Protein backbone atom coordinates (compact mmCIF):
# COMPACT_ATOMS: atom_id res chain seq x y z
CA UNK A 1 0.00 0.00 0.00
CA UNK A 2 1.45 3.39 -0.92
CA UNK A 3 2.35 5.76 1.89
CA UNK A 4 -0.23 8.39 2.78
CA UNK A 5 0.72 12.07 2.70
CA UNK A 6 0.80 12.07 6.48
CA UNK A 7 3.17 9.08 6.52
CA UNK A 8 5.43 10.73 4.00
CA UNK A 9 5.55 14.00 5.95
CA UNK A 10 6.32 12.14 9.17
CA UNK A 11 9.05 10.15 7.44
CA UNK A 12 10.63 13.32 6.02
CA UNK A 13 10.52 15.06 9.40
CA UNK A 14 12.03 12.03 11.17
CA UNK A 15 14.75 11.58 8.54
CA UNK A 16 15.83 15.23 8.40
CA UNK A 17 15.80 15.53 12.19
CA UNK A 18 17.41 12.12 12.82
CA UNK A 19 14.49 11.21 15.08
CA UNK A 20 13.09 7.70 15.66
CA UNK A 21 10.09 7.33 13.33
CA UNK A 22 7.67 6.63 16.20
CA UNK A 23 8.48 9.94 17.89
CA UNK A 24 6.93 11.87 15.02
CA UNK A 25 3.15 11.74 15.22
CA UNK A 26 0.42 13.77 13.53
CA UNK A 27 -0.18 15.59 16.81
CA UNK A 28 3.51 16.43 17.32
CA UNK A 29 4.31 20.12 17.31
CA UNK A 30 7.69 21.16 15.96
CA UNK A 31 8.42 22.73 19.33
CA UNK A 32 7.88 19.40 21.12
CA UNK A 33 10.22 17.75 18.66
CA UNK A 34 12.90 20.38 19.35
CA UNK A 35 12.62 21.76 15.83
CA UNK A 36 13.77 25.39 15.59
CA UNK A 37 13.58 27.87 12.72
CA UNK A 38 16.69 26.57 10.99
CA UNK A 39 15.55 22.93 11.30
CA UNK A 40 12.23 24.11 9.88
CA UNK A 41 14.03 25.45 6.79
CA UNK A 42 15.64 22.07 6.26
CA UNK A 43 12.29 20.30 6.65
CA UNK A 44 10.66 22.65 4.13
CA UNK A 45 13.49 21.97 1.71
CA UNK A 46 13.06 18.21 2.13
CA UNK A 47 9.25 18.42 1.83
CA UNK A 48 9.57 20.43 -1.40
CA UNK A 49 11.82 17.69 -2.79
CA UNK A 50 9.55 14.86 -1.56
CA UNK A 51 6.34 16.28 -3.00
CA UNK A 52 7.75 18.30 -5.93
CA UNK A 53 5.98 21.43 -4.73
CA UNK A 54 7.15 24.89 -3.84
CA UNK A 55 6.15 26.13 -0.39
CA UNK A 56 5.78 29.92 -0.51
CA UNK A 57 7.51 31.80 2.32
CA UNK A 58 4.21 33.03 3.74
CA UNK A 59 2.70 29.51 3.85
CA UNK A 60 5.92 28.17 5.36
CA UNK A 61 5.37 30.34 8.44
CA UNK A 62 2.23 28.31 9.24
CA UNK A 63 4.09 25.00 9.44
CA UNK A 64 4.47 24.64 13.20
CA UNK A 65 3.31 21.06 13.64
CA UNK A 66 3.20 17.83 11.67
CA UNK A 67 -0.54 18.25 11.14
CA UNK A 68 -0.12 21.80 9.81
CA UNK A 69 2.62 20.59 7.49
CA UNK A 70 0.40 17.75 6.20
CA UNK A 71 -2.51 20.14 5.63
CA UNK A 72 -0.25 22.65 3.93
CA UNK A 73 1.19 20.02 1.61
CA UNK A 74 -2.33 18.73 0.82
CA UNK A 75 -3.40 22.25 -0.14
CA UNK A 76 -0.33 22.75 -2.32
CA UNK A 77 -0.84 19.37 -4.03
CA UNK A 78 -4.53 20.14 -4.62
CA UNK A 79 -3.62 23.52 -6.12
CA UNK A 80 -0.96 21.87 -8.30
CA UNK A 81 -3.36 19.21 -9.59
CA UNK A 82 -6.30 21.58 -10.04
Amino acid at each position, binding site marked *: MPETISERVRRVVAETQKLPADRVQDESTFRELGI*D*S*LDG*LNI*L*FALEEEFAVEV*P*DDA*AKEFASVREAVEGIERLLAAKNA
Partner: protein
Amino acid sequence: MRRVAVTGAGVVSALGVGVSSFWSALRAGTSGIGPIRAVDCSGIKFSNGAEVPDFNPLLHFDAKTAGQLDRSVQFAGIAAAEAIAHSGAALVPERTAVVTGCAIGGKPTEDHTYRLLYAEGRTRFDPMSIPKVMTSASASYISMRHGITGPCYTVSTACASAAHAIGQAFWMVRSGQVDVAVTGGTEAPVTLGMLRAWEAMRVVAPDTCRPFSRDRRGLILGEGAAVVVLEDLDAAVARGARVHAEICGFGMSSDAGHLTAPSADGAARAMSAALRDAGLDATQIGYVNAHGTGTAANDSTETRAIRAVFAAPPLVSATKSMHGHALGASPALEAVATILALRDGVLPPTAHFTEADPECDLDVIPNRARDVQVEAALSNSFAFGGLNAVLAFRRYVGSGQE
Protein backbone atom coordinates in the same frame (compact mmCIF):
# COMPACT_ATOMS: atom_id res chain seq x y z
CA MET B 1 45.37 56.73 25.07
CA ARG B 2 44.99 58.63 21.84
CA ARG B 3 41.75 59.97 20.51
CA VAL B 4 41.03 58.81 16.98
CA ALA B 5 39.65 60.97 14.17
CA VAL B 6 37.80 59.99 11.03
CA THR B 7 39.35 62.20 8.36
CA GLY B 8 38.28 60.55 5.12
CA ALA B 9 35.55 58.37 3.64
CA GLY B 10 34.91 56.64 0.35
CA VAL B 11 31.81 54.77 -0.80
CA VAL B 12 30.60 52.64 -3.68
CA SER B 13 26.99 51.53 -3.24
CA ALA B 14 23.60 51.19 -4.83
CA LEU B 15 23.35 54.94 -4.34
CA GLY B 16 26.24 55.50 -6.76
CA VAL B 17 30.00 55.91 -6.71
CA GLY B 18 31.32 58.45 -4.22
CA VAL B 19 30.50 59.68 -0.74
CA SER B 20 28.55 62.69 -1.98
CA SER B 21 26.03 60.65 -3.98
CA PHE B 22 25.69 58.20 -1.05
CA TRP B 23 25.07 60.90 1.51
CA SER B 24 22.78 63.06 -0.61
CA ALA B 25 20.61 60.01 -1.37
CA LEU B 26 20.46 58.98 2.30
CA ARG B 27 19.53 62.52 3.34
CA ALA B 28 16.81 62.59 0.72
CA GLY B 29 15.49 59.16 1.75
CA THR B 30 16.15 57.85 -1.77
CA SER B 31 16.47 54.10 -2.09
CA GLY B 32 18.87 52.29 -4.43
CA ILE B 33 16.69 49.17 -4.48
CA GLY B 34 15.40 48.03 -7.86
CA PRO B 35 15.22 45.06 -10.25
CA ILE B 36 18.40 42.96 -10.25
CA ARG B 37 20.25 43.32 -13.55
CA ALA B 38 23.39 41.16 -13.14
CA VAL B 39 21.42 37.91 -12.87
CA ASP B 40 18.32 36.60 -14.61
CA CYS B 41 16.00 36.10 -11.65
CA SER B 42 13.31 34.08 -13.44
CA GLY B 43 12.18 31.28 -11.15
CA ILE B 44 13.65 32.92 -8.06
CA LYS B 45 11.18 34.08 -5.39
CA PHE B 46 12.59 37.61 -5.43
CA SER B 47 13.96 39.85 -8.13
CA ASN B 48 14.90 43.11 -6.40
CA GLY B 49 18.33 44.05 -5.13
CA ALA B 50 20.56 47.03 -4.43
CA GLU B 51 23.23 46.92 -7.14
CA VAL B 52 25.76 49.63 -7.93
CA PRO B 53 24.07 51.41 -10.86
CA ASP B 54 25.83 51.32 -14.23
CA PHE B 55 29.13 50.27 -12.69
CA ASN B 56 31.97 50.47 -15.19
CA PRO B 57 35.35 49.43 -13.77
CA LEU B 58 37.13 50.93 -16.78
CA LEU B 59 36.23 54.40 -15.51
CA HIS B 60 38.39 53.63 -12.47
CA PHE B 61 41.08 51.15 -13.54
CA ASP B 62 43.12 50.48 -16.66
CA ALA B 63 41.97 47.40 -18.55
CA LYS B 64 44.78 45.20 -17.29
CA THR B 65 44.24 46.06 -13.63
CA ALA B 66 40.46 45.73 -13.94
CA GLY B 67 40.93 42.20 -15.27
CA GLN B 68 43.03 41.24 -12.27
CA LEU B 69 40.46 42.35 -9.70
CA ASP B 70 37.18 40.75 -8.69
CA ARG B 71 34.20 43.11 -8.63
CA SER B 72 34.37 43.17 -4.82
CA VAL B 73 38.02 44.29 -4.94
CA GLN B 74 37.24 46.94 -7.55
CA PHE B 75 34.63 48.39 -5.19
CA ALA B 76 37.11 48.41 -2.29
CA GLY B 77 39.87 49.93 -4.38
CA ILE B 78 37.65 52.81 -5.52
CA ALA B 79 36.35 53.47 -2.00
CA ALA B 80 39.87 53.39 -0.51
CA ALA B 81 41.28 55.78 -3.12
CA GLU B 82 38.44 58.20 -2.43
CA ALA B 83 38.86 57.94 1.35
CA ILE B 84 42.61 58.51 1.23
CA ALA B 85 42.29 61.46 -1.16
CA HIS B 86 39.43 62.86 0.92
CA SER B 87 41.54 62.69 4.11
CA GLY B 88 44.49 64.50 2.57
CA ALA B 89 46.72 62.35 4.79
CA ALA B 90 50.32 61.76 3.74
CA LEU B 91 50.63 58.08 4.63
CA VAL B 92 53.83 56.93 6.30
CA PRO B 93 54.00 53.41 4.84
CA GLU B 94 55.09 51.38 7.86
CA ARG B 95 52.97 53.45 10.30
CA THR B 96 49.76 52.80 8.37
CA ALA B 97 47.43 49.77 8.59
CA VAL B 98 44.87 48.34 6.21
CA VAL B 99 42.05 46.31 7.73
CA THR B 100 39.14 45.26 5.54
CA GLY B 101 36.03 43.20 6.19
CA CYS B 102 34.54 40.80 3.68
CA ALA B 103 32.14 37.91 4.30
CA ILE B 104 32.24 35.89 1.10
CA GLY B 105 35.21 36.95 -1.05
CA GLY B 106 35.27 37.02 -4.84
CA LYS B 107 31.94 35.36 -5.57
CA PRO B 108 31.46 36.91 -9.05
CA THR B 109 34.79 35.41 -10.17
CA GLU B 110 34.00 32.10 -8.50
CA ASP B 111 30.52 31.89 -9.98
CA HIS B 112 31.85 32.67 -13.45
CA THR B 113 34.70 30.15 -13.35
CA TYR B 114 32.53 27.38 -11.88
CA ARG B 115 29.98 27.92 -14.61
CA LEU B 116 32.73 27.48 -17.20
CA LEU B 117 33.90 24.31 -15.43
CA TYR B 118 30.59 22.59 -14.65
CA ALA B 119 28.26 23.88 -17.34
CA GLU B 120 30.61 24.34 -20.27
CA GLY B 121 33.15 21.65 -19.51
CA ARG B 122 36.10 24.04 -19.77
CA THR B 123 39.22 22.86 -18.03
CA ARG B 124 41.49 25.87 -18.44
CA PHE B 125 40.98 28.54 -15.80
CA ASP B 126 41.91 32.21 -15.64
CA PRO B 127 45.31 32.10 -13.88
CA MET B 128 44.13 35.06 -11.77
CA SER B 129 41.22 33.05 -10.32
CA ILE B 130 42.89 32.30 -6.99
CA PRO B 131 44.18 35.82 -6.18
CA LYS B 132 40.82 37.22 -7.33
CA VAL B 133 38.66 35.08 -5.05
CA MET B 134 40.64 35.34 -1.81
CA THR B 135 38.71 37.24 0.86
CA SER B 136 41.76 39.37 1.65
CA ALA B 137 42.29 40.51 -1.96
CA SER B 138 40.92 43.97 -1.13
CA ALA B 139 43.42 44.49 1.72
CA SER B 140 46.28 43.40 -0.52
CA TYR B 141 45.18 45.63 -3.38
CA ILE B 142 44.84 48.72 -1.14
CA SER B 143 48.24 48.01 0.42
CA MET B 144 49.96 47.65 -2.95
CA ARG B 145 48.17 50.53 -4.66
CA HIS B 146 49.01 52.99 -1.86
CA GLY B 147 52.35 51.56 -0.76
CA ILE B 148 51.10 50.80 2.76
CA THR B 149 53.51 48.43 4.52
CA GLY B 150 52.17 48.23 8.09
CA PRO B 151 49.69 45.65 9.44
CA CYS B 152 47.40 44.51 6.64
CA TYR B 153 44.64 41.92 6.94
CA THR B 154 41.00 41.04 6.44
CA VAL B 155 38.35 40.08 8.96
CA SER B 156 35.53 37.75 7.98
CA THR B 157 32.59 37.61 10.37
CA ALA B 158 29.67 37.37 7.96
CA CYS B 159 27.46 40.47 8.12
CA ALA B 160 29.53 42.07 10.91
CA SER B 161 32.84 41.80 9.00
CA ALA B 162 33.50 45.49 8.39
CA ALA B 163 32.50 46.44 11.94
CA HIS B 164 35.05 44.04 13.36
CA ALA B 165 37.57 45.40 10.83
CA ILE B 166 36.96 49.07 11.65
CA GLY B 167 36.94 48.33 15.37
CA GLN B 168 40.29 46.54 15.22
CA ALA B 169 41.77 49.33 13.11
CA PHE B 170 40.46 51.91 15.59
CA TRP B 171 42.09 50.06 18.48
CA MET B 172 45.41 49.89 16.62
CA VAL B 173 45.43 53.66 16.08
CA ARG B 174 44.22 54.38 19.62
CA SER B 175 46.97 52.25 21.17
CA GLY B 176 49.67 53.81 19.02
CA GLN B 177 50.48 50.62 17.15
CA VAL B 178 49.98 52.61 13.95
CA ASP B 179 49.27 56.28 13.25
CA VAL B 180 46.76 55.86 10.44
CA ALA B 181 44.39 53.09 9.39
CA VAL B 182 42.58 52.63 6.09
CA THR B 183 39.64 50.42 6.98
CA GLY B 184 36.21 49.34 5.84
CA GLY B 185 34.55 46.53 3.97
CA THR B 186 33.49 45.30 0.58
CA GLU B 187 31.10 42.76 -0.92
CA ALA B 188 29.75 41.68 -4.30
CA PRO B 189 27.17 38.98 -3.61
CA VAL B 190 24.88 39.35 -6.64
CA THR B 191 25.52 36.03 -8.38
CA LEU B 192 23.07 33.29 -9.34
CA GLY B 193 24.59 30.91 -6.79
CA MET B 194 24.33 33.42 -3.96
CA LEU B 195 20.78 34.48 -4.90
CA ARG B 196 19.65 30.83 -4.87
CA ALA B 197 21.40 30.25 -1.54
CA TRP B 198 19.71 33.29 0.01
CA GLU B 199 16.37 32.21 -1.45
CA ALA B 200 16.71 28.91 0.44
CA MET B 201 17.11 30.84 3.72
CA ARG B 202 13.68 32.42 3.13
CA VAL B 203 14.79 35.81 4.45
CA VAL B 204 14.83 37.90 1.26
CA ALA B 205 11.87 40.20 0.66
CA PRO B 206 9.88 39.76 -2.55
CA ASP B 207 9.10 43.49 -2.56
CA THR B 208 11.50 45.82 -0.81
CA CYS B 209 13.32 46.36 2.47
CA ARG B 210 11.02 47.85 5.15
CA PRO B 211 12.94 47.71 8.42
CA PHE B 212 10.80 48.01 11.57
CA SER B 213 7.56 48.18 9.54
CA ARG B 214 4.80 45.80 10.54
CA ASP B 215 4.58 44.52 6.95
CA ARG B 216 8.33 43.92 6.52
CA ARG B 217 9.04 40.77 4.55
CA GLY B 218 12.79 40.41 4.71
CA LEU B 219 16.10 41.83 3.62
CA ILE B 220 17.22 43.04 0.20
CA LEU B 221 20.70 42.01 -0.92
CA GLY B 222 23.05 44.83 -1.80
CA GLU B 223 26.64 45.30 -2.87
CA GLY B 224 29.37 47.87 -2.57
CA ALA B 225 32.20 49.04 -0.38
CA ALA B 226 32.97 51.76 2.12
CA VAL B 227 36.34 52.76 3.51
CA VAL B 228 37.33 55.32 6.14
CA VAL B 229 40.66 56.82 7.12
CA LEU B 230 41.29 56.84 10.87
CA GLU B 231 44.16 58.76 12.41
CA ASP B 232 45.53 60.07 15.65
CA LEU B 233 43.27 63.05 16.38
CA ASP B 234 46.05 65.35 17.57
CA ALA B 235 48.13 64.68 14.46
CA ALA B 236 45.10 65.20 12.25
CA VAL B 237 44.29 68.53 13.89
CA ALA B 238 47.96 69.57 13.74
CA ARG B 239 48.09 69.04 9.99
CA GLY B 240 44.86 70.97 9.54
CA ALA B 241 42.75 67.99 8.47
CA ARG B 242 38.99 68.17 8.55
CA VAL B 243 37.76 65.84 11.30
CA HIS B 244 34.37 64.44 10.29
CA ALA B 245 33.81 62.71 13.63
CA GLU B 246 35.64 60.83 16.32
CA ILE B 247 35.51 57.06 16.51
CA CYS B 248 35.54 56.41 20.22
CA GLY B 249 34.32 52.91 21.03
CA PHE B 250 34.13 49.34 19.84
CA GLY B 251 32.26 46.49 21.51
CA MET B 252 31.93 42.84 20.59
CA SER B 253 30.02 39.84 21.84
CA SER B 254 29.00 36.38 20.76
CA ASP B 255 25.52 34.93 21.30
CA ALA B 256 26.90 31.39 21.68
CA GLY B 257 23.36 30.39 20.83
CA HIS B 258 21.63 29.81 17.54
CA LEU B 259 23.23 29.78 14.11
CA THR B 260 20.70 32.17 12.56
CA ALA B 261 18.21 33.34 15.20
CA PRO B 262 19.35 36.63 16.73
CA SER B 263 19.67 37.17 20.49
CA ALA B 264 18.64 40.39 22.20
CA ASP B 265 21.05 39.66 25.02
CA GLY B 266 24.06 39.24 22.74
CA ALA B 267 23.22 42.42 20.83
CA ALA B 268 22.69 44.39 24.05
CA ARG B 269 26.01 43.18 25.47
CA ALA B 270 27.84 44.39 22.35
CA MET B 271 26.18 47.83 22.60
CA SER B 272 27.05 48.08 26.30
CA ALA B 273 30.64 47.03 25.56
CA ALA B 274 30.96 49.76 22.93
CA LEU B 275 29.64 52.36 25.40
CA ARG B 276 32.12 51.21 28.06
CA ASP B 277 35.00 51.24 25.58
CA ALA B 278 34.03 54.77 24.54
CA GLY B 279 33.58 56.00 28.10
CA LEU B 280 30.11 57.15 27.09
CA ASP B 281 26.96 57.03 29.14
CA ALA B 282 23.86 55.65 27.41
CA THR B 283 22.20 59.06 27.83
CA GLN B 284 24.83 60.63 25.55
CA ILE B 285 23.80 58.50 22.57
CA GLY B 286 21.33 60.38 20.36
CA TYR B 287 21.21 58.04 17.39
CA VAL B 288 21.64 54.37 16.59
CA ASN B 289 22.22 53.21 13.04
CA ALA B 290 20.51 49.86 13.46
CA HIS B 291 21.50 46.53 11.99
CA GLY B 292 17.88 46.80 10.79
CA THR B 293 17.79 44.15 8.06
CA GLY B 294 14.02 44.14 7.56
CA THR B 295 13.57 40.52 8.65
CA ALA B 296 10.83 39.72 11.13
CA ALA B 297 13.30 38.30 13.65
CA ASN B 298 16.08 40.89 13.50
CA ASP B 299 14.06 44.04 13.87
CA SER B 300 11.96 42.96 16.85
CA THR B 301 14.98 41.42 18.59
CA GLU B 302 17.10 44.51 17.95
CA THR B 303 14.30 46.67 19.38
CA ARG B 304 14.35 44.62 22.59
CA ALA B 305 18.15 44.91 22.72
CA ILE B 306 18.05 48.71 22.30
CA ARG B 307 15.38 48.98 24.99
CA ALA B 308 17.51 46.84 27.30
CA VAL B 309 20.49 49.19 26.93
CA PHE B 310 18.67 52.54 26.82
CA ALA B 311 16.09 53.52 29.44
CA ALA B 312 14.99 56.23 26.99
CA PRO B 313 15.75 54.88 23.51
CA PRO B 314 17.54 57.25 21.14
CA LEU B 315 16.45 57.88 17.56
CA VAL B 316 17.08 54.83 15.40
CA SER B 317 17.16 54.26 11.66
CA ALA B 318 18.01 51.46 9.27
CA THR B 319 19.81 52.71 6.17
CA LYS B 320 19.77 49.18 4.70
CA SER B 321 16.35 50.33 3.46
CA MET B 322 18.30 52.45 0.94
CA HIS B 323 21.70 50.78 0.30
CA GLY B 324 20.48 47.21 0.84
CA HIS B 325 22.23 44.54 2.84
CA ALA B 326 25.74 44.40 1.41
CA LEU B 327 26.68 41.61 3.87
CA GLY B 328 30.21 42.16 5.21
CA ALA B 329 30.37 45.66 3.70
CA SER B 330 27.15 46.85 5.36
CA PRO B 331 28.80 47.90 8.63
CA ALA B 332 31.21 50.14 6.71
CA LEU B 333 28.41 51.78 4.71
CA GLU B 334 26.50 52.32 7.95
CA ALA B 335 29.57 53.65 9.76
CA VAL B 336 29.95 56.29 7.04
CA ALA B 337 26.24 57.17 7.33
CA THR B 338 26.67 57.54 11.11
CA ILE B 339 29.82 59.67 10.80
CA LEU B 340 28.18 62.05 8.32
CA ALA B 341 25.03 62.23 10.45
CA LEU B 342 27.16 63.44 13.37
CA ARG B 343 29.09 65.85 11.17
CA ASP B 344 26.11 67.46 9.48
CA GLY B 345 23.43 67.19 12.17
CA VAL B 346 21.14 65.21 9.88
CA LEU B 347 19.84 61.74 10.75
CA PRO B 348 19.10 59.56 7.71
CA PRO B 349 15.65 57.95 7.69
CA THR B 350 14.32 54.41 7.48
CA ALA B 351 12.94 54.32 3.94
CA HIS B 352 9.95 52.30 2.68
CA PHE B 353 8.37 52.56 6.12
CA THR B 354 4.62 51.98 5.99
CA GLU B 355 3.15 50.98 9.33
CA ALA B 356 4.37 50.88 12.92
CA ASP B 357 4.92 47.48 14.49
CA PRO B 358 4.17 47.24 18.24
CA GLU B 359 7.13 44.86 18.49
CA CYS B 360 9.40 47.61 17.14
CA ASP B 361 8.29 50.49 19.35
CA LEU B 362 11.10 52.92 18.54
CA ASP B 363 11.22 56.22 16.67
CA VAL B 364 12.84 54.88 13.49
CA ILE B 365 12.79 58.21 11.58
CA PRO B 366 10.25 56.99 9.01
CA ASN B 367 10.95 58.00 5.40
CA ARG B 368 12.20 61.56 6.01
CA ALA B 369 15.60 62.57 7.36
CA ARG B 370 15.56 64.63 10.52
CA ASP B 371 17.70 67.66 11.35
CA VAL B 372 18.96 66.72 14.79
CA GLN B 373 22.46 67.39 16.06
CA VAL B 374 23.36 64.51 18.34
CA GLU B 375 26.44 64.22 20.51
CA ALA B 376 27.26 60.57 19.96
CA ALA B 377 25.94 57.58 18.03
CA LEU B 378 26.24 53.82 17.70
CA SER B 379 26.33 51.66 14.59
CA ASN B 380 25.08 48.10 15.16
CA SER B 381 26.06 44.99 13.23
CA PHE B 382 24.90 41.47 14.11
CA ALA B 383 26.01 38.50 12.04
CA PHE B 384 24.69 35.01 11.44
CA GLY B 385 26.52 32.74 13.82
CA GLY B 386 25.80 35.18 16.65
CA LEU B 387 28.79 37.49 16.14
CA ASN B 388 27.97 41.04 17.22
CA ALA B 389 30.02 44.21 16.72
CA VAL B 390 29.07 47.77 17.60
CA LEU B 391 31.00 50.95 16.81
CA ALA B 392 30.63 54.20 18.76
CA PHE B 393 31.24 57.62 17.25
CA ARG B 394 31.05 61.11 18.67
CA ARG B 395 30.67 64.52 17.15
CA TYR B 396 33.91 66.47 16.83
CA VAL B 397 33.45 70.12 17.70
CA GLY B 398 37.03 71.31 17.42
CA SER B 399 39.66 72.16 19.96
CA GLY B 400 38.75 74.72 22.58
CA GLN B 401 35.03 74.29 21.91
CA GLU B 402 34.41 71.35 24.24
